């Protein structure tokens, strides 16, 4: 376009405005500024609808439907869980890529890199926490997405294959989350993954199980090879497969349309794609705006959680020679750990989860009931609820509260000062652990004036009394906590517990830990402790 004749013909201002208009329309892939204004005002589109153009012009929009049935755009129909899962996958990819910059998948370097990320990289801890909370939320949201689909019967014909790809996506999400678990190379990661991969070993026949285990770990025990393999699974292989299944899944969703609320169509019919003109809600602008606002809002909640309520844990460096007491799987595998406590590894770790997976995939084919209405699906819904309750009970059994109690004296100490992680004493911190000897038999008020320490000593006495009451091998128990100053800024906390067993023999248990003035310990969930903020400023 020759500029000069154009300006001569139309005048300068209108030429510039025309150019701006033109550029705007290109950026919006075909929607003029006037149309955008009308959209924002909530006015109806003209005919033919000029808002459909971006769906043919823009790549990212051409995979979205141009309009939806009004009933399925209601938040309470889908809760937008599918969108959220997709968003979280993207979110994890981006934060994960940033974290990869500071990470080396080698046992010699990985843990050092984690400490460097936390202590020397601006926004390092923030990014790590976001990635971690995103991963846990992704597992939760994908599961809820499946629960919603089950409860509305949306897996029924013609959406059986969509359901199948969804189950695969759930499994991939679990594996993706679990494979990332090992990467920090701390005790928590190492032992959770050791337990996880040991289940692969139970696959019958033995030669298959051993081979699978060897392939996953890269050696009989997890080491340099295992870490590299999990890293590659986590950053490349699983995301690629998930990406592929996501598009198959999404294509099917668009192809069949989102199933309508069951009472809006006849039993046995699927009218999701026949949307009357007066019930159409166009993607542009309504659905796009809903989705954008929803995702921004959700991100804000995640950032808020990371700023104040959530920190990814980092325990001691992985030590293959020492298993910490009460090793646990990530929470979304508690149910599996619960089953492993009551049944054999082959049954609980391989056969039952395998049956569960096949059952999940087969649901659309087992459930021949054509109706999606809740009142016609009593059996399906009740069995779904029962399955959910069983999962929750099994998950509870997977926590250390169930059936793995060590000796009472060990448990008393573990509760207040666990081998790994924070516990009440480390959370209270050095300043609240006064030097001295504290006896469970003497009233606390006479021993200390520090409120936080008093609470801890009280809990110590109460915990000893509790086990004294329930364990016949643990009688007349009492204990002391001896705190000594071993070095500048370093205190030794010596636990001694004495008791008499059922045969009248006196026994005792001793254990000591050190606590440094500067060390910070934190729990994964809960209000964050910002004490260091004031302390460092006072120090300067």
């Amino acid at each position, binding site marked *: 376009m020759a500029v000069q004749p154009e300006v001569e013909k139309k005048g300068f201002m209108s030429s510039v405005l025309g150019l701006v208009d033109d550029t705007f329309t290109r950026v919006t892939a075909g929607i003029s500024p006037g149309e955008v204004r009308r*959209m*924002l*005002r*909530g006015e109806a589109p003209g005919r033919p609808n000029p808002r459909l153009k971006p769906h043919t012009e823009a790549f990212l929009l051409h995979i979205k439907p141009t309009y939806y049935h009004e009933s399925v755009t*209601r*938040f*309470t129909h889908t809760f937008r869980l599918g969108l959220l899962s997709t968003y979280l996958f993207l979110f994890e990819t981006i934060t994960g890529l940033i974290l990869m910059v500071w990470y080396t998948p080698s046992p*010699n370097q990985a*843990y*050092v890199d984690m*400490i460097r990320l*936390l*202590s*020397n*990289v*601006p*926004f*390092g*801890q*923030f990014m790590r926490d976001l990635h971690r909370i995103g991963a846990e939320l992704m597992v939760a949201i994908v599961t809820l997405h499946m629960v919603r689909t089950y409860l509305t019967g949306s897996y029924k014909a013609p959406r059986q294959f969509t359901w199948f790809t969804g189950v695969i996506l759930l499994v991939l999400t679990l594996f993706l989350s679990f494979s990332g678990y090992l990467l920090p190379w701390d005790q928590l990661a190492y032992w959770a993954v050791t337990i996880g991969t040991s289940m692969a070993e139970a696959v019958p026949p033995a030669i298959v199980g051993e081979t699978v285990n060897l392939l996953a770990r890269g050696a009989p025990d997890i080491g340099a090879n295992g870490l590299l393999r999990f890293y590659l699974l986590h950053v490349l292989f699983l995301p690629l497969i998930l990406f592929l299944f996501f598009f198959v899944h999404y294509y099917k969703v668009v192809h069949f349309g989102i199933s309508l609320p069951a009472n809006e169509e006849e039993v046995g019919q699927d009218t999701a794609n026949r949307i009357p003109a007066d019930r159409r809600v166009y993607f542009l*602008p*309504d659905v796009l*705006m*809903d989705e*954008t*606002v929803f995702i*921004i*809002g959700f*991100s*804000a909640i995640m*950032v*808020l959680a990371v*700023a104040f309520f959530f920190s990814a844990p980092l325990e*001691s*460096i992985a030590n293959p020679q020492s298993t910490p007491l009460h090793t646990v799987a990530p929470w979304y595998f508690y149910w599996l750990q619960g089953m492993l406590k009551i049944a054999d590894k082959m049954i609980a770790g391989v056969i039952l989860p395998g049956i569960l997976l096949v059952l999940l995939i087969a649901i659309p084919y087992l459930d021949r009931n054509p109706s999606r209405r809740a009142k016609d699906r009593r059996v399906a819904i009740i069995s779904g609820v029962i399955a959910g309750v069983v999962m929750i009970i099994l998950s509870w059994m997977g926590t250390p509260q169930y059936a793995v109690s060590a000796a009472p004296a060990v448990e008393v100490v573990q509760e207040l000062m666990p081998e790994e992680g924070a516990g009440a004493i480390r959370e209270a911190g050095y300043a609240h652990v006064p030097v001295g000897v504290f006896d469970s038999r003497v009233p606390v008020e006479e021993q200390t004036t520090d409120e936080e320490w008093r609470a801890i000593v009280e809990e110590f006495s109460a915990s000893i009394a509790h086990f004294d009451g329930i364990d016949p091998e643990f009688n007349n128990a009492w204990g002391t906590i001896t705190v000594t100053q*071993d*070095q*500048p*800024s*370093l205190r*030794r906390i010596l636990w001694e517990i004495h008791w008499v067993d059922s045969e009248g023999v006196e026994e005792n248990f001793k254990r*000591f*830990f*050190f*606590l*440094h*003035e*500067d*060390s*910070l310990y934190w729990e994964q969930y809960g209000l964050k402790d*910002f004490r*260091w*903020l004031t*302390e*460092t*400023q006072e120090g300067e």
Partner: protein
Amino acid sequence: MKRPWYNFIYVRSPIAKILLGGAALLLTLALFGFTFIIEEPRMEAQTNSWTGRSIEKGAEIFANNCTSCHGVDGKGLPGVAPALHSHYFFTQRLTDLGYAGSLHDYVAGTVAAGRPSKAISQWAQIMPTWGVNYGGPLRNDQVQDVTAFVMNWEQDALQQTAEEDPWQPFQDAKTTDISGTMALPPSAPADGEARAPQDLFTVMGCQGCHNLEQDQTADNRGAIAPNLGNLDTEAGNMVAGQDALTYVINSITHPNDFIVEGYAAGIMPQNFPDRMSAEEIANLAQWLLDQAAAN
């Protein structure tokens, strides 16, 4: 169509939606800003925290592996191993050795690789190699943890006066003369009151080489010196004409008179009669036999 009771949660006005989204975006940005502002002190606190945790881990390793020779407070045991919690160690040691690196590197290197030989030094036991690179049990990060713990004595050690400094000069190295140095290990207390034998067993460094918990048998021999767990049954059979008590007392006062087969002469310090009174030695010998019998 009938409206459900939760109808109010549906936001329909585009303006309201835009405002909600904008508010959420502002909140996110504000939280980013907050995180940015506290990033400097947070990183500093984290750095200190991981140093602190390293010292905690080092303290645990030291307590479990090093105290039997270097003492529970790191001040060394006479004739067994030198002091680390010492003014001299933190100020003069490297100069006297002619070591070019930092004290941190020296400690880390010694922990990892041990001391090459005890040929002309007075220490009863050589420093073992601890680092995994030298065939020892500790990983590299654990060597660093122990080093961080030892270096953490600096502040305390620098405040020691010359009299308090527990440093003992090495026989095989030039040592800057620091007056008040314990040229001789502590001798019997001036007031003449006998010290408790269980204390002497620690203070004199016996436990650095002799294990009182385990028996000395053909397949469980002490590495440097015989185990004392079955002393009560064995002591009387060692030297003809000496009963158990006489043999133990004689072994403390004149260790080279009789050397158990398989061990070298000259390892056990020969100056115990100067450092303990006869009464204390007799008490110690009797206590050792009692302890062994109680096992």
